[in-house]
């Protein structure tokens, strides 16, 4: 090992101080990253459309922020699904949700160097933070009884301590818990009060059975929220690595610039596939959510029958449970309908 590289390795040691703690109330949890989203067989006509486009020569570089048509379709989709109201030119197509996390965190933490992150979040957030550290990271407490959402009090405390950037998941990628309307309004007020910004991962929004008010749609939060997500969760494109990021004009140039340095553009077959889904009106996953919800209800009953504690959550694709004796278990996952049952 060349000596100076030890320092680089230490720096990228993935945020030890942010490691997901072992919740003390109900035992220890593991986080299933691999199957965040339900899988599905891809419609053959979608694949035919992608193949035809590739044979027609759509194999070359495309615009850094994504194909113009797809950006428009994603802009429309975010509006229809009541997650954000942004113009197409505020949308960046990313190489999966992880690149969206990375771009948002790295660019915004340059402007807002004190970042507040819930202590229980998807590990990808810590990974993205670890590539190049912001100046300071504050931990937001996150308790199982709240579905591991950071409580409003903790958010307010962090903002008062100087945090200018919140990184939040709603729904939580561990439990599926979502902030209610009052909480969302309060968070928006806090962003305004403290002149702060939020990165909001809404990748599980499609699976929420509870109302999911969007922080990005709060009138007073306009320009203060950068939304990230898988581009089309649940349609079978997870392994195609396609994400979306919607941000304010203030940060768009910086994010586009970093995207260009990172990968020039997102893989064209993935972008073409998303367009094919939209063109066929196949982006709606309500029926998938309904079938997952049924499976989840059954899983909850099974979990309770064996004495496990169910963590509050309202998403049909995940179920977080704990064993009685605190033995580490996987996050129960009812997401992969016919291919896998929920797992512990």
């Amino acid at each position, binding site marked *: 090992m060349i000596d100076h590289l030890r320092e680089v390795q230490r720096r990228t040691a993935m945020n030890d101080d942010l490691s997901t703690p072992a919740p003390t109330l109900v035992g220890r949890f593991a986080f299933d990253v691999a199957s965040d989203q339900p899988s599905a067989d891809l419609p053959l006509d979608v694949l035919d459309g992608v193949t035809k486009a590739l044979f027609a020569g759509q194999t070359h570089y495309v615009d850094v922020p994504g194909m113009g048509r797809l950006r428009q379709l994603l802009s429309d989709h975010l509006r229809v699904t009541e997650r954000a109201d942004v113009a197409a030119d505020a949308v960046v197509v990313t190489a999966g949700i992880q690149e969206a996390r990375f771009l948002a965190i790295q660019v915004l933490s340059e402007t807002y160097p004190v970042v507040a992150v819930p202590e229980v979040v998807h590990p990808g957030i810590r990974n993205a933070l670890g590539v190049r550290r912001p100046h300071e990271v504050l931990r937001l407490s996150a308790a199982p009884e709240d579905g591991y959402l950071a409580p409003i009090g903790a958010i307010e405390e962090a903002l008062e301590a100087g945090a200018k950037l919140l990184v939040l998941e709603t729904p939580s990628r561990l439990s599926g818990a979502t902030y209610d309307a009052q909480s969302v309004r309060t968070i928006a007020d806090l962003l305004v009060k403290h002149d702060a910004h939020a990165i909001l991962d809404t990748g599980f929004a499609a699976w929420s059975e509870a109302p999911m008010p969007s922080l990005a749609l709060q009138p007073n939060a306009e320009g203060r929220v950068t939304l990230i997500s898988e581009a089309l969760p649940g349609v079978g494109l997870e*392994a195609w690595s396609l994400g979306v990021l919607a941000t304010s004009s203030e940060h768009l140039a910086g994010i586009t610039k*970093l995207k260009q340095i*990172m*990968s020039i553009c997102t893989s064209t*077959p993935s972008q073409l596939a998303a367009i094919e889904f939209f063109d066929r009106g196949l982006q709606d996953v309500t029926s998938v959510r309904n079938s997952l919800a049924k499976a989840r209800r059954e899983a909850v009953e099974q979990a309770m029958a064996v004495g496990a504690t169910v963590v509050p959550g309202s998403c049909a694709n995940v179920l977080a449970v704990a064993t009685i004796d605190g033995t580490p278990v996987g996050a129960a996952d009812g997401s992969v309908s016919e291919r896998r049952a929920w797992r512990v």
Partner: protein
Amino acid sequence: MSNKAKRGTEILYGLIGEARQYDDAIILGRGDPDFDTPAHIIDAARHAMEHSSGEASPPEGILPLRRAISDRVARRNGVVYDPADEIVFTNGGQEALMLMIAATLAPGDEIIVPEPNYNTYKDAVAFVGASVVSVKTSAEQAFRTDPAEVRAALTARTKAILLVSPNNPAASVISRADQEAFIAIARERGLVLIADDIYDVLTYDGIEHVSAASLPGGRERTLTLNALSKTYAMTGWRTGWVTGPADLMATVRALKAGVSGPASIVAQYAALAALTGPQDELERMRSAYIERRRIVLDAVKAMGLSFGQPQGGQFVFVDVSETGMDSVELAQKVLREEHVLAYPGGAFSPDMSNFVRVTFLQSEDKLRDGMARFKRVVDDIRRTTGQ
């Protein structure tokens, strides 16, 4: 904003945007071959869409692909890497470069970078808070990076040397002797060599490409990037990789997980097909580049302009000092008046504002047309200025 105040990539993307306004534009700027991806690669991608779309990939890529990369690098570059922990598949060469830089440099560190160079090297170095120390090259020396100049540029903060062979945009190839000299410097000073081998199969006139990692003492301190974009006409797919010794690659792999996670599974299977399938399309394209290069060189000679003899790559670096114009201004003039996009050398290095980079990635007819249009501008300047 003045051209001088703009960063290199801003200038290039500005020109790309302007070129889109012209229906008859001939693009001799961007490094995007006019060839489409070979059919058997698309067929393999289609197969993967149907049968592997649910397959989870580790951040470093699926094992069959890493094995194929290992085979290719062993066969072409003469270095053996373990697919288990010495190869990471990336979203193109661009991400590979960023990962190598981030794995090697910390804030305050310096990296030796020969000029001219593709400007995103500087962007990547700036991202991690390190600094570029430039080493100049010249057309008179065929844009050779002189090891003595590199040695003279070292400081206590130097942590790495960038080796781009064939160079973009100057198209020079680093000789075996110079590679050995760079390895000796790196060993002596405990440095990492960051090698960009993306044009390794595209050398001309019998010039040999030698990978730094293949030479004694090179493997343990070299990170090498490569990609399929240029050689297999797969720019849009985003298919590249980094190879290196396991200790360095551990950091690259961790960074890959943090930056973007695994590349698209469809792109991975397409890359696998490119590396393991028939190579006749590759040879056909390579033969075409040889002929196209000749067309551009003949045209440049006919203009009475000099150029750096392109030893490799897909471009000719043309000396336009005779026009008396700054390269950015000249590129803008050629684009606006004749709708031909060529990249100004000034975007690659302030010291290269007398050069423009002309790619030979278009059809022979387009190249002839584009160079004829270019000549009209140069002739007009000569008439106007009496030069």
